[in-house]
C-alpha cells in the first residue's frame, strides 16, 4: 500500500507540474502558430458553423480556466490530492463489508465532476457577468447558446479528464478495479452528472449577486452535501436518516451512480437509472430557473 501511494504522489506531482504550477508564473503563453489565429478571414466571409463556433469558444474558455490558479487547484489538484490522501490513509478500511477505497474513488470522481461543472462554473459565470465580460460578448453576433455551450463543454472536458485520471490512479496505484462491463455505467453517470451540474450552475448563478459571494456561497451549500453524500465519508457509515435526506439531492445521486459499478460483485451494466432520473429532474428544475432568470448583465443576481 505504502509504495503505491508514493508512486501516486509522484504521478500527482507530474500532473501538477503539467497543469498547474508550471503555468502559474507566466500566465500567458505565445500562441504556437502565429499566422492562423491572426487570419480568421482566410476561410471567407462566412461565419463558422455551429460546432465550429462552440469549439472556438471552448478553446478560449479552456485557456482561461487553465491560467486561473484558483480554478486549477479546485478542479484538478484538489480531487487528485484527496484521492491519494484518502486511499493512502484509509483505503483499506472496511466499511459495511466493503473496502473504503470503493467509496473514495467514485466519491472523488463525483467531487471532480461537481468541482468543474458546478462550483467553478458558478464562480466563473458570476465573475464574468459582474465584470461585464458576458455583456460585452453578447453585444457581438455570437449566439447565447454558443457562449453557454462552449463554457459547458469546457467544464465537461475538465470534469471527464480529471475523472479519468482519478479512476486510473485508483486502479493502477491502489488496485481499485472496475469490471470492464461496468465502465459504460461510470462514463454515463459522469457525463450525465456533468450535464446536470452545468445546468444547475447556470441556475444558481442567477441567485448570486457578486463575484466575491460566489465562492463562499457555493461552498457553504456544497460542503454539507459532500459530507452527507459519501464523498469524504463512505456513506454506509452514516445514519440512515442522513442518507435519506442526502438522497434527495443530486450530489448523492451522482456519487451513488458512480459507486454502484464499483461496489457490485454481480456482472452486468450497473446503470443506476433511478439516480440518473433524479439528476434529470434536478436538471429540468435548473433549466426552468435558468431560462426564467438568467441574465448576461451585471447586477442581475442582486434582486434575489
Amino acid at each position, binding site marked *: 500500500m505504502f509504495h503505491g501511494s508514493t508512486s501516486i504522489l509522484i504521478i500527482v506531482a507530474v500532473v501538477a507540474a503539467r497543469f498547474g504550477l508550471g503555468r502559474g508564473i507566466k500566465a500567458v503563453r505565445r*500562441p504556437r502558430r502565429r499566422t492562423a489565429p491572426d487570419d480568421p478571414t482566410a476561410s471567407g466571409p462566412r461565419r463558422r458553423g455551429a460546432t465550429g463556433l462552440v469549439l472556438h469558444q471552448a478553446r478560449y474558455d479552456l485557456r482561461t480556466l487553465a491560467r486561473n490558479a484558483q480554478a486549477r487547484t479546485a478542479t484538478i489538484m484538489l480531487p487528485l490530492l484527496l484521492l491519494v490522501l484518502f486511499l493512502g490513509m484509509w483505503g483499506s478500511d472496511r466499511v459495511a463489508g466493503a473496502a473504503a477505497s470503493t467509496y473514495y474513488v467514485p466519491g472523488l470522481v463525483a467531487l471532480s465532476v461537481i468541482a468543474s461543472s458546478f462550483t467553478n462554473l458558478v464562480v466563473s459565470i458570476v465573475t464574468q457577468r459582474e465584470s461585464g*465580460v458576458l455583456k*460585452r460578448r453578447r453585444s457581438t453576433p455570437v449566439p447565447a447558446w454558443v457562449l453557454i455551450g462552449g463554457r459547458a463543454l469546457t467544464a465537461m472536458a475538465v470534469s471527464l479528464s480529471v475523472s479519468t485520471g482519478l479512476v486510473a490512479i485508483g486502479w493502477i496505484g491502489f488496485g481499485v478495479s472496475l469490471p470492464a462491463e461496468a465502465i459504460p455505467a461510470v462514463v454515463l453517470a459522469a457525463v450525465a452528472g456533468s450535464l446536470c451540474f452545468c445546468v444547475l450552475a447556470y441556475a444558481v448563478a442567477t441567485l448570486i449577486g457578486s463575484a466575491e459571494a460566489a465562492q463562499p456561497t457555493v461552498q457553504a451549500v456544497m460542503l454539507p452535501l459532500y459530507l452527507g453524500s459519501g464523498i469524504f465519508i463512505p456513506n454506509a457509515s452514516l445514519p440512515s436518516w442522513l442518507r435519506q435526506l442526502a438522497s434527495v439531492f443530486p450530489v448523492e445521486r451522482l456519487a451513488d451512480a458512480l459507486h454502484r459499478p464499483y461496489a457490485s460483485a454481480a456482472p452486468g451494466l450497473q446503470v443506476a437509472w433511478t439516480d440518473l432520473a433524479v439528476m434529470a429532474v434536478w436538471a429540468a428544475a435548473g433549466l426552468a430557473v435558468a431560462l426564467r432568470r438568467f441574465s448576461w448583465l451585471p447586477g442581475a443576481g442582486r434582486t434575489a
Partner: protein
Amino acid sequence: MSDPIVHARDLRKRYGNREVVSGVDLDVRAGELFALLGPNGAGKTTIVEILTGFRCRSGGDVRVLGADPQTAGTVWRERVGVVLQESQPDPGLSVRECLSLYAGYYRAPRRPAEIAELVGLADSLEAGTGQLSGGQRRRLDIGLALIGRPELLFLDEPTTGFDPKARREAWDMIDGLRRLGTTIVLTTHAMDEAERLADRIAVIVDGAVVAQGTPATIGGRDHHAHEITFTLPTGRRVSMRSAQPLADVRALADWALGRGIDLPDLEVRRPALEDVYLALAGSPTTTDSQEA
C-alpha cells in the same frame, strides 16, 4: 440623403413609476460623431442600452441601422460595435487571444494585428490582459468593438477615470476612428470631451434632451451674450453682458480714451461650452444617484 443611422422618437423608459428616459428624440447621421452629454444619472447609459438592444423601452419608436434593436438579430449585431462603460477584459487571455476570440464571432473580421495598430496596442499584442493599464484596457475594449468592422460604434464614457495624458491619447485615437467612416455615438459627462470630439451634441438632463446642436451652436452658444470684463483705475472690477460685443467694446474704448483711462485687462469672452452646459444641466442639486 440616406436615412439616419440612429432614429429615436419619444423614447421612454420607466422603472416602476420612475421614468428615467422621458421622451427623447435623436437622429444620428451616417459618418458623424454624436455625443450624448449629461451629468451622471441623466439616463445616457439607459438610452445606449436601449439603442444596443440590451434593454427594452417602455415607449416610443427606435430604429438603429433600420432595425428595432429590441428584436434585431445576429446580422444586425454584425454591424454594431459596443464599448460598455464598465467591462473588464476577458480574464487569462493575451491581447491577441482576446481579439482572436472576438474575431471568431464575426463573418468578416479585421485581423487582430490590424486592430492592435488602430487602437495603439501593437506593442502589447502578447501581453496578458491583467498586465494592461486602465488606458490600454479601454483601447482593447474599443478594439474588440471594432473587430467586426461595425458601421456604428457606441462608446459609453470612454475616458472616465483617465489621467489627463491618457485622456488626450484616447481622444486622438477616437478622432482617428473617423477615418474608418464609422458612425460613432459617444456618451460622456465631460463637456471638454464632447467639444473636442463631437460633430453634434445632445445634452441630456433627467432623461430628456434639453439642447441639441454642434459644439459651436449648442444652447444658443453662438447667440448668447458675450461677457466683457475690465478693471477701472479705481480698482473696481466691472463685468457686463453684451449681445453685440464689437459695438459695445468700441463704445467702451471711446469712453475710456476720452477720459484718458487705460483698461489693461479688458477681456471679451464667448460663453464656454461649460457655462452653457452648466446652465442647461441646472444647479448641482440633482440627486447623485447611480446611472442605471
